[in-house]
Protein backbone atom coordinates (compact mmCIF):
# COMPACT_ATOMS: atom_id res chain seq x y z
CA UNK A 1 0.00 0.00 0.00
CA UNK A 2 1.19 3.53 -0.76
CA UNK A 3 0.28 6.89 0.70
CA UNK A 4 -0.37 9.39 -2.09
CA UNK A 5 -0.32 13.12 -1.44
CA UNK A 6 -1.98 15.25 -4.07
CA UNK A 7 -3.47 18.72 -4.19
CA UNK A 8 -2.80 22.19 -5.47
CA UNK A 9 0.67 23.71 -5.48
CA UNK A 10 1.78 25.26 -2.20
CA UNK A 11 -0.34 22.98 -0.01
CA UNK A 12 2.59 21.09 1.49
CA UNK A 13 2.74 17.90 -0.54
CA UNK A 14 6.54 17.80 -0.62
CA UNK A 15 7.21 19.19 2.86
CA UNK A 16 4.68 16.94 4.54
CA UNK A 17 5.48 14.01 2.28
CA UNK A 18 9.17 14.03 3.20
CA UNK A 19 8.41 14.16 6.91
CA UNK A 20 5.73 11.51 6.63
CA UNK A 21 8.07 9.19 4.75
CA UNK A 22 10.76 9.66 7.38
CA UNK A 23 8.31 8.87 10.17
CA UNK A 24 7.12 5.74 8.40
CA UNK A 25 10.58 4.65 7.30
CA UNK A 26 9.31 4.54 3.71
CA UNK A 27 10.92 6.08 0.63
CA UNK A 28 9.57 9.43 -0.54
CA UNK A 29 8.79 9.67 -4.24
CA UNK A 30 8.23 13.11 -5.73
CA UNK A 31 6.67 12.60 -9.16
CA UNK A 32 7.71 16.07 -10.37
CA UNK A 33 11.33 15.46 -9.38
CA UNK A 34 11.20 12.10 -11.13
CA UNK A 35 9.93 13.75 -14.30
CA UNK A 36 12.72 16.30 -14.14
CA UNK A 37 15.32 13.56 -13.75
CA UNK A 38 13.93 11.62 -16.71
CA UNK A 39 13.65 14.69 -18.92
CA UNK A 40 16.97 16.13 -17.80
CA UNK A 41 15.47 19.60 -17.30
CA UNK A 42 13.27 21.51 -14.80
CA UNK A 43 9.52 21.31 -15.24
CA UNK A 44 9.32 24.99 -16.21
CA UNK A 45 11.62 24.23 -19.16
CA UNK A 46 9.62 21.15 -20.15
CA UNK A 47 6.58 23.41 -20.39
CA UNK A 48 8.33 26.16 -22.38
CA UNK A 49 10.34 23.89 -24.69
CA UNK A 50 8.06 20.91 -25.17
CA UNK A 51 4.61 21.99 -23.95
CA UNK A 52 2.15 20.84 -21.31
CA UNK A 53 0.96 17.85 -23.35
CA UNK A 54 4.47 16.36 -23.29
CA UNK A 55 4.75 17.05 -19.58
CA UNK A 56 1.46 15.28 -18.91
CA UNK A 57 2.61 12.30 -20.97
CA UNK A 58 5.82 12.09 -18.93
CA UNK A 59 3.76 12.41 -15.78
CA UNK A 60 1.46 9.53 -16.79
CA UNK A 61 4.44 7.30 -17.51
CA UNK A 62 6.13 8.11 -14.22
CA UNK A 63 2.97 7.45 -12.26
CA UNK A 64 2.38 4.17 -14.12
CA UNK A 65 5.82 2.98 -13.03
CA UNK A 66 5.78 4.28 -9.48
CA UNK A 67 2.43 2.78 -8.47
CA UNK A 68 3.83 -0.74 -8.83
CA UNK A 69 5.95 -0.16 -5.75
CA UNK A 70 4.71 -0.63 -2.21
CA UNK A 71 5.19 1.26 1.05
CA UNK A 72 6.03 4.57 -0.55
CA UNK A 73 4.91 8.11 0.17
CA UNK A 74 4.17 9.55 -3.27
CA UNK A 75 3.75 13.28 -3.89
CA UNK A 76 2.14 14.09 -7.20
CA UNK A 77 2.04 17.31 -9.13
CA UNK A 78 -0.98 19.53 -8.69
CA UNK A 79 -2.70 18.50 -11.91
CA UNK A 80 -1.81 14.81 -11.93
CA UNK A 81 -5.05 13.57 -10.44
CA UNK A 82 -7.15 15.37 -13.04
CA UNK A 83 -6.16 12.65 -15.51
CA UNK A 84 -8.57 9.71 -15.15
CA UNK A 85 -5.87 7.13 -15.74
CA UNK A 86 -3.55 8.65 -13.16
CA UNK A 87 -6.37 8.90 -10.66
CA UNK A 88 -7.42 5.27 -11.08
CA UNK A 89 -3.87 3.98 -10.74
CA UNK A 90 -3.06 6.12 -7.73
CA UNK A 91 -6.27 5.15 -5.93
CA UNK A 92 -5.67 1.50 -6.61
CA UNK A 93 -2.15 1.71 -5.20
CA UNK A 94 -3.17 3.09 -1.83
CA UNK A 95 -4.84 5.88 0.04
CA UNK A 96 -5.02 9.27 -1.70
CA UNK A 97 -4.86 12.35 0.48
CA UNK A 98 -5.67 15.73 -1.03
CA UNK A 99 -4.08 18.69 0.69
CA UNK A 100 -5.95 21.95 0.17
CA UNK A 101 -5.54 25.58 1.14
CA UNK A 102 -7.31 28.85 0.49
CA UNK A 103 -6.14 30.71 -2.65
CA UNK A 104 -4.58 33.54 -0.65
CA UNK A 105 -2.62 31.06 1.47
CA UNK A 106 -1.35 29.30 -1.66
CA UNK A 107 -0.22 32.59 -3.19
CA UNK A 108 1.60 33.56 -0.03
CA UNK A 109 3.50 30.27 -0.10
CA UNK A 110 4.47 30.29 -3.80
CA UNK A 111 4.77 34.04 -4.45
CA UNK A 112 8.57 34.07 -4.23
CA UNK A 113 9.00 31.25 -6.76
CA UNK A 114 6.41 32.05 -9.40
CA UNK A 115 8.86 31.57 -12.25
CA UNK A 116 9.24 27.92 -11.26
CA UNK A 117 5.46 27.42 -11.41
CA UNK A 118 4.62 27.01 -15.10
CA UNK A 119 0.88 27.17 -14.44
CA UNK A 120 1.30 30.61 -12.83
CA UNK A 121 4.28 32.17 -14.56
CA UNK A 122 3.31 35.07 -16.78
CA UNK A 123 -0.10 35.43 -15.15
CA UNK A 124 -1.06 39.09 -14.72
CA UNK A 125 -3.17 38.26 -11.71
CA UNK A 126 -1.71 35.17 -10.01
CA UNK A 127 -4.49 35.04 -7.41
CA UNK A 128 -7.17 34.97 -10.08
CA UNK A 129 -5.22 32.28 -11.93
CA UNK A 130 -4.95 30.20 -8.74
CA UNK A 131 -8.70 30.51 -8.19
CA UNK A 132 -9.44 29.50 -11.78
CA UNK A 133 -7.14 26.47 -11.63
CA UNK A 134 -8.59 25.39 -8.30
CA UNK A 135 -12.09 25.60 -9.74
CA UNK A 136 -11.06 23.55 -12.77
CA UNK A 137 -9.53 20.83 -10.58
CA UNK A 138 -12.07 20.84 -7.76
CA UNK A 139 -14.02 17.86 -9.04
CA UNK A 140 -10.87 15.76 -9.37
CA UNK A 141 -9.57 16.74 -5.94
CA UNK A 142 -12.93 15.84 -4.42
CA UNK A 143 -12.33 12.22 -5.41
CA UNK A 144 -9.49 11.82 -2.94
CA UNK A 145 -10.05 9.48 0.00
CA UNK A 146 -9.08 12.09 2.56
CA UNK A 147 -8.99 15.88 2.28
CA UNK A 148 -7.02 18.06 4.68
CA UNK A 149 -7.11 21.86 4.66
CA UNK A 150 -3.63 23.19 5.36
CA UNK A 151 -4.64 26.85 5.59
CA UNK A 152 -3.03 28.42 8.65
CA UNK A 153 -1.24 25.22 9.64
CA UNK A 154 2.47 24.79 10.12
CA UNK A 155 4.10 21.84 8.38
CA UNK A 156 4.21 19.92 11.66
CA UNK A 157 0.54 20.61 12.34
CA UNK A 158 -0.33 19.50 8.84
CA UNK A 159 1.77 16.36 9.27
CA UNK A 160 -0.10 15.54 12.46
CA UNK A 161 -3.46 15.85 10.70
CA UNK A 162 -2.26 13.59 7.89
CA UNK A 163 -0.86 11.11 10.40
CA UNK A 164 -4.15 10.97 12.31
CA UNK A 165 -6.08 10.54 9.09
CA UNK A 166 -4.02 7.63 7.79
CA UNK A 167 -3.76 5.68 11.03
CA UNK A 168 -6.70 3.40 10.09
CA UNK A 169 -4.70 2.33 7.03
CA UNK A 170 -1.53 1.54 8.93
CA UNK A 171 -0.76 -0.63 11.84
CA UNK A 172 2.82 -0.47 12.96
CA UNK A 173 2.26 -2.78 15.87
CA UNK A 174 0.92 -5.43 13.50
CA UNK A 175 3.97 -4.96 11.32
CA UNK A 176 6.16 -5.50 14.40
CA UNK A 177 4.23 -8.68 15.10
CA UNK A 178 4.91 -10.00 11.60
CA UNK A 179 8.56 -9.05 11.66
CA UNK A 180 9.17 -10.81 15.00
CA UNK A 181 6.66 -13.66 14.78
CA UNK A 182 9.06 -16.49 15.60
CA UNK A 183 10.75 -14.77 18.52
CA UNK A 184 7.39 -13.70 19.95
CA UNK A 185 6.05 -17.22 19.51
CA UNK A 186 8.91 -18.73 21.52
CA UNK A 187 8.52 -16.21 24.31
CA UNK A 188 4.76 -15.57 24.48
CA UNK A 189 3.12 -18.61 22.84
CA UNK A 190 -0.45 -19.08 24.07
CA UNK A 191 -0.74 -15.57 25.51
CA UNK A 192 -1.95 -12.17 24.45
CA UNK A 193 0.50 -9.32 24.13
CA UNK A 194 0.03 -5.59 23.81
CA UNK A 195 2.36 -4.03 21.27
CA UNK A 196 2.87 -0.33 20.93
CA UNK A 197 5.06 0.77 18.06
CA UNK A 198 7.97 -1.62 18.18
CA UNK A 199 7.82 -3.01 21.68
CA UNK A 200 5.78 -5.37 23.81
CA UNK A 201 4.39 -3.39 26.73
CA UNK A 202 2.32 -6.05 28.49
CA UNK A 203 1.10 -9.62 28.31
CA UNK A 204 -1.91 -11.47 29.68
CA UNK A 205 -4.02 -14.59 29.59
CA UNK A 206 -6.88 -12.64 28.01
CA UNK A 207 -7.13 -9.56 25.82
CA UNK A 208 -8.64 -7.66 28.74
CA UNK A 209 -5.89 -8.63 31.16
CA UNK A 210 -3.16 -7.71 28.70
CA UNK A 211 -4.74 -4.34 27.91
CA UNK A 212 -5.37 -3.49 31.56
CA UNK A 213 -1.71 -4.14 32.33
CA UNK A 214 -0.68 -2.03 29.37
CA UNK A 215 -2.95 0.92 30.02
CA UNK A 216 -0.76 2.50 32.67
CA UNK A 217 2.24 2.34 30.33
CA UNK A 218 0.58 3.82 27.28
CA UNK A 219 0.34 7.53 26.69
CA UNK A 220 -2.80 8.85 25.07
CA UNK A 221 -1.26 9.33 21.67
CA UNK A 222 0.40 5.95 21.33
CA UNK A 223 -0.89 3.43 18.87
CA UNK A 224 -1.39 0.03 20.50
CA UNK A 225 -2.74 -3.35 19.57
CA UNK A 226 -3.64 -6.53 21.44
CA UNK A 227 -2.44 -9.63 19.66
CA UNK A 228 -2.70 -13.34 20.28
CA UNK A 229 0.46 -15.37 19.95
CA UNK A 230 -0.50 -18.95 19.07
CA UNK A 231 1.09 -21.79 20.92
CA UNK A 232 2.04 -24.74 18.70
CA UNK A 233 -1.10 -26.63 19.87
CA UNK A 234 -3.34 -23.66 19.02
CA UNK A 235 -1.75 -23.35 15.61
CA UNK A 236 -2.75 -26.93 14.82
CA UNK A 237 -6.33 -26.29 16.00
CA UNK A 238 -6.61 -23.08 13.96
CA UNK A 239 -5.69 -24.93 10.85
CA UNK A 240 -8.20 -27.75 11.42
Amino acid at each position, binding site marked *: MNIVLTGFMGTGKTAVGQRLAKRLGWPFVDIDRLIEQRAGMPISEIFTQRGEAVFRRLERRCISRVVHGQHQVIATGGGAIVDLQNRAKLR*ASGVVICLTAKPQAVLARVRHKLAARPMLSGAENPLARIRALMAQRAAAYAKADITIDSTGLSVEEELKRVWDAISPYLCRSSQYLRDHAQALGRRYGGRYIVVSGDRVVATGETQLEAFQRASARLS*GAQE*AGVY*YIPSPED*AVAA*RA
Partner: protein
Amino acid sequence: MSRPRRLKAASPGLPRVDFPYMKDTQGHFAPIVYLQVWTRNRWLYLQAYVDSGASWSVFHADVAQLLGLKLRQLKRRYVTLGNGAVLPIYFDHIRVRFAGAEFSVPVGFSDALHMGFNLMGRAGFFTKFTMCFNDRARLLTVTRSSRSPR
Protein backbone atom coordinates in the same frame (compact mmCIF):
# COMPACT_ATOMS: atom_id res chain seq x y z
CA MET B 1 -37.42 -16.28 -15.48
CA SER B 2 -35.70 -13.19 -14.03
CA ARG B 3 -31.97 -12.85 -14.45
CA PRO B 4 -29.81 -13.21 -11.34
CA ARG B 5 -28.72 -9.84 -10.13
CA ARG B 6 -25.18 -9.15 -11.22
CA LEU B 7 -22.99 -8.34 -8.28
CA LYS B 8 -21.14 -5.08 -8.58
CA ALA B 9 -17.46 -5.89 -8.75
CA ALA B 10 -14.95 -3.76 -6.93
CA SER B 11 -14.32 -0.85 -9.25
CA PRO B 12 -10.75 -0.22 -10.32
CA GLY B 13 -9.21 2.61 -8.43
CA LEU B 14 -11.02 2.03 -5.12
CA PRO B 15 -8.96 2.14 -1.93
CA ARG B 16 -7.45 -1.20 -1.20
CA VAL B 17 -5.67 -2.54 1.86
CA ASP B 18 -3.58 -5.68 1.68
CA PHE B 19 -3.28 -7.94 4.70
CA PRO B 20 -0.48 -10.47 4.39
CA TYR B 21 -1.49 -13.73 6.00
CA MET B 22 -0.15 -14.03 9.53
CA LYS B 23 2.37 -16.75 10.17
CA ASP B 24 1.86 -18.98 13.18
CA THR B 25 4.60 -20.72 15.12
CA GLN B 26 4.25 -23.75 12.88
CA GLY B 27 4.96 -21.68 9.83
CA HIS B 28 1.40 -21.87 8.50
CA PHE B 29 -0.44 -18.83 7.23
CA ALA B 30 -3.99 -17.61 7.84
CA PRO B 31 -6.09 -14.54 6.88
CA ILE B 32 -5.82 -12.62 10.13
CA VAL B 33 -6.46 -8.90 9.95
CA TYR B 34 -6.29 -5.96 12.32
CA LEU B 35 -9.10 -3.55 13.04
CA GLN B 36 -9.55 -0.79 15.58
CA VAL B 37 -12.19 -0.58 18.28
CA TRP B 38 -12.94 2.35 20.57
CA THR B 39 -12.14 1.52 24.19
CA ARG B 40 -13.61 4.59 25.90
CA ASN B 41 -10.39 6.59 25.66
CA ARG B 42 -8.43 5.29 22.69
CA TRP B 43 -8.64 3.37 19.48
CA LEU B 44 -7.10 -0.06 20.01
CA TYR B 45 -6.04 -2.56 17.40
CA LEU B 46 -7.42 -6.06 17.69
CA GLN B 47 -6.87 -9.07 15.54
CA ALA B 48 -9.56 -11.05 13.84
CA TYR B 49 -9.49 -14.27 11.86
CA VAL B 50 -11.48 -13.57 8.71
CA ASP B 51 -14.03 -16.35 8.31
CA SER B 52 -16.16 -16.06 5.19
CA GLY B 53 -18.19 -19.00 6.44
CA ALA B 54 -19.32 -17.16 9.57
CA SER B 55 -22.51 -15.12 9.34
CA TRP B 56 -21.54 -12.99 12.33
CA SER B 57 -18.38 -11.69 13.87
CA VAL B 58 -17.69 -13.18 17.27
CA PHE B 59 -15.23 -11.62 19.67
CA HIS B 60 -14.10 -12.89 23.02
CA ALA B 61 -16.25 -11.82 25.94
CA ASP B 62 -13.38 -9.91 27.54
CA VAL B 63 -13.37 -7.60 24.53
CA ALA B 64 -16.88 -6.53 25.57
CA GLN B 65 -15.44 -5.53 28.95
CA LEU B 66 -12.62 -3.75 27.21
CA LEU B 67 -15.23 -1.76 25.30
CA GLY B 68 -17.16 -0.99 28.46
CA LEU B 69 -20.08 -3.24 27.56
CA LYS B 70 -21.93 -5.40 30.11
CA LEU B 71 -22.39 -8.76 28.47
CA ARG B 72 -25.63 -9.73 30.22
CA GLN B 73 -27.29 -6.48 29.14
CA LEU B 74 -26.73 -7.27 25.48
CA LYS B 75 -29.12 -9.09 23.21
CA ARG B 76 -28.56 -12.84 23.45
CA ARG B 77 -28.84 -15.15 20.51
CA TYR B 78 -27.85 -18.73 19.99
CA VAL B 79 -25.71 -19.66 17.03
CA THR B 80 -24.95 -23.13 15.74
CA LEU B 81 -21.37 -23.95 14.97
CA GLY B 82 -20.16 -26.25 12.23
CA ASN B 83 -19.77 -29.10 14.71
CA GLY B 84 -23.38 -28.81 15.80
CA ALA B 85 -22.63 -27.11 19.10
CA VAL B 86 -24.94 -24.27 20.09
CA LEU B 87 -23.27 -21.20 21.50
CA PRO B 88 -24.86 -18.24 23.32
CA ILE B 89 -23.70 -15.01 21.77
CA TYR B 90 -24.34 -11.51 23.12
CA PHE B 91 -24.79 -8.96 20.36
CA ASP B 92 -24.23 -5.27 20.08
CA HIS B 93 -23.26 -2.77 17.43
CA ILE B 94 -19.78 -1.37 17.94
CA ARG B 95 -17.83 1.35 16.20
CA VAL B 96 -14.80 0.03 14.33
CA ARG B 97 -12.13 1.29 11.98
CA PHE B 98 -11.14 -1.17 9.32
CA ALA B 99 -9.35 -0.85 6.00
CA GLY B 100 -9.57 2.90 5.99
CA ALA B 101 -13.23 3.23 6.92
CA GLU B 102 -15.01 3.90 10.18
CA PHE B 103 -18.44 2.38 10.66
CA SER B 104 -20.77 0.54 13.00
CA VAL B 105 -20.94 -3.25 12.78
CA PRO B 106 -22.88 -5.97 14.64
CA VAL B 107 -20.59 -8.11 16.75
CA GLY B 108 -21.34 -11.02 19.01
CA PHE B 109 -19.41 -11.62 22.21
CA SER B 110 -18.92 -15.05 23.62
CA ASP B 111 -17.20 -16.43 26.68
CA ALA B 112 -17.26 -19.86 25.07
CA LEU B 113 -15.00 -19.01 22.16
CA HIS B 114 -11.92 -21.10 22.64
CA MET B 115 -9.58 -20.17 19.84
CA GLY B 116 -7.16 -17.34 20.44
CA PHE B 117 -8.33 -15.00 17.72
CA ASN B 118 -11.49 -12.99 17.43
CA LEU B 119 -13.58 -13.95 14.42
CA MET B 120 -14.61 -11.59 11.64
CA GLY B 121 -17.73 -12.85 9.96
CA ARG B 122 -19.72 -11.53 7.05
CA ALA B 123 -22.33 -9.25 8.65
CA GLY B 124 -21.31 -5.63 8.40
CA PHE B 125 -17.93 -6.35 6.83
CA PHE B 126 -18.51 -8.33 3.68
CA THR B 127 -21.24 -5.93 2.54
CA LYS B 128 -18.86 -2.99 2.73
CA PHE B 129 -15.77 -4.64 1.37
CA THR B 130 -14.79 -7.12 -1.27
CA MET B 131 -12.50 -9.70 0.31
CA CYS B 132 -10.14 -11.52 -1.99
CA PHE B 133 -8.37 -14.48 -0.42
CA ASN B 134 -5.22 -15.35 -2.31
CA ASP B 135 -3.86 -18.41 -0.55
CA ARG B 136 -1.08 -18.82 -3.04
CA ALA B 137 0.24 -15.32 -2.42
CA ARG B 138 -0.84 -15.52 1.25
CA LEU B 139 -2.58 -12.21 0.90
CA LEU B 140 -6.03 -10.96 1.77
CA THR B 141 -6.93 -7.93 -0.32
CA VAL B 142 -9.73 -5.81 1.08
CA THR B 143 -11.32 -3.32 -1.29
CA ARG B 144 -14.21 -1.02 -0.50
CA SER B 145 -16.97 -2.46 -2.60
CA SER B 146 -19.17 0.57 -3.13
CA ARG B 147 -18.65 4.29 -3.17
CA SER B 148 -20.90 7.29 -3.54
CA PRO B 149 -21.29 8.31 -7.20
CA ARG B 150 -18.10 9.93 -8.42
